[in-house]
């Protein structure tokens, strides 16, 4: 069991409250996933700058002077904004790949949680409320975001086993369920040269989507083909730069509820996650159909 929440704002006046609304939704799903929690938030971006969210178990040491060292290594200005165990590195878009490689050289204990123009991912082990507090998620603004509360069934409770998983620039994935063919699929993807870090099943799904898209699929096509290539139970919510998507496996035993008003589209593993949203009493509330890809875009 895990919990998923998602919120896509249509009404720009709600954007300053996105983090607060998502935090409230996330905490409601604590008893579906008290092991660890994570949030992907699509905030402000500027055309010239890309963002990398990075993580270290020893942030005081790892992030000290890192901006300077990274800047020297890739010969371009970077800024680094620490937030607890995470930090947001802002740099030119065309330097992201170089920065990723340079970080590995500078300090291989630093993990890259996300890259993109607007996406930031924060995730840690612990109760959802504590995780949200550590990163002050409630204070963040943004156009949309997704969150996850994890009850681990497949692999260890670790930061890297927590969701969301970054699948490409400004793309991320969260998952409720369990995949049964993740070991064979991991071997296949590794043979294709795909980097997979953990024994986690969702990381394999994320890597699969990334690999599909690198080979020419759109995100929608990659999700559709996952219905054939992934065996197991899943409700997926994917974040993209301008929206989010939802896919449930054909058996659809993992729950999903959606709500839509003029102001937002919201996703919850349960209706409980949605009850504090404005206008929920008159919202259109429904369950997404099995084996059907849904997208909402700005």
């Amino acid at each position, binding site marked *: 069991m895990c919990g998923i929440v998602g919120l896509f704002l249509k009404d720009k006046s709600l954007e300053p409250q996105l983090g607060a609304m998502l935090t409230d939704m996330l905490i409601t799903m604590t008893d579906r996933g008290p092991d660890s929690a994570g949030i992907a938030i699509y905030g402000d971006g500027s055309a010239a700058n890309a963002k990398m969210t990075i993580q270290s178990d020893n942030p005081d040491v790892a992030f000290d002077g890192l901006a300077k060292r990274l800047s020297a290594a890739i010969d371009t200005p970077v800024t680094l904004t620490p937030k607890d165990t995470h930090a947001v590195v802002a740099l030119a878009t065309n330097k992201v790949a170089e920065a990723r490689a340079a970080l590995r050289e500078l300090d291989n204990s630093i993990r890259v949680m996300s890259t993109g123009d607007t996406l930031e991912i924060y995730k840690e082990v612990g109760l959802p409320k504590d995780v949200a507090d550590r990163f002050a998620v409630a204070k963040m603004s943004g156009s949309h975001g997704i969150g996850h509360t994890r009850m681990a069934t497949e692999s260890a409770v670790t930061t890297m086993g927590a969701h969301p998983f970054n699948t490409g620039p400004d793309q991320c994935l969260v998952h409720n369920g369990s995949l049964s063919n993740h070991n064979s699929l991991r071997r296949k993807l590794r043979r294709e040269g795909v980097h997979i870090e953990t024994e986690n099943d969702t990381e394999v799904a994320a890597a699969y989507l990334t690999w599909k898209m690198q080979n020419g699929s759109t995100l929608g096509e990659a999700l559709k083909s996952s219905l054939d290539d992934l065996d197991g139970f899943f409700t997926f919510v994917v974040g993209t730069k301008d929206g989010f998507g939802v896919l449930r496996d*054909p*058996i*659809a*035993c993992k*729950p999903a*509820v959606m709500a839509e008003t003029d102001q937002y589209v919201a996703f919850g593993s*349960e*209706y*409980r*996650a*949605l*009850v504090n949203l404005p206008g929920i*009493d008159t919202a259109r*509330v*429904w*369950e997404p159909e*099995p084996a059907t890809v849904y997208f909402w875009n700005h």
Partner: protein
Amino acid sequence: MQTFDLEAEGLRKLNSTLHRQAETTNQTEWEIINPRGSHAIAVGLDAPIEVTIKGSTGYYCAGMNKQATINVHGSAGPGVAENMMSGAVIVDGDASQYAGATGNGGTLVIKGNASSRCGISMKGIDIVVHGNVGHMSAFMAQSGNLVVCGNAGDALGDSIYEARLFVRGSVKSLGADCIEKEMRPEHLAILADLLERGGCDAKPAEFTRYGSARKLYNFNIDNAY
């Protein structure tokens, strides 16, 4: 009328209060406010009382009901009226997966749509759905009636034993051993009664009946010990 604020007073107090109502109680009408999608609301009741829940409910609302009439003025989460024995549960909105699962008796009315596995392993319950039902509905159904005024999803009645399934609209596919059956006068009479109890004005003649072909393992006499 007794009003109970679930948010203020909590689930345990609600259910224990409702459990204390004897058959002879004079507190026959209950209204539950602020359900906010909570789980296990009004579970295990055993008294002829009428409970109205003002809002949507989470998992397992009205499970194991005996005698009580439970109205949900909203939608219901997974497993509404699971294993009902008698009484009635009426959901004004939609119901999530496995509504009425393993129900032994009583009547479940869903005025919106029901999602997957509605009436799974039903054992005597009557279920009337005004809208559609999702895939694998009436899976391994053993007894009782499932009425669907809209359409049914994939694999309706898979591995069915003896329940009657009445569908007005389309059936995406039938499950193993489920077949279309003749609608005889006695079935029209049963269906008319179900529709009336379900508050549905559809005409019995518009429905098709489905049931068991009795060809699976357990029906083959050669498999008997």
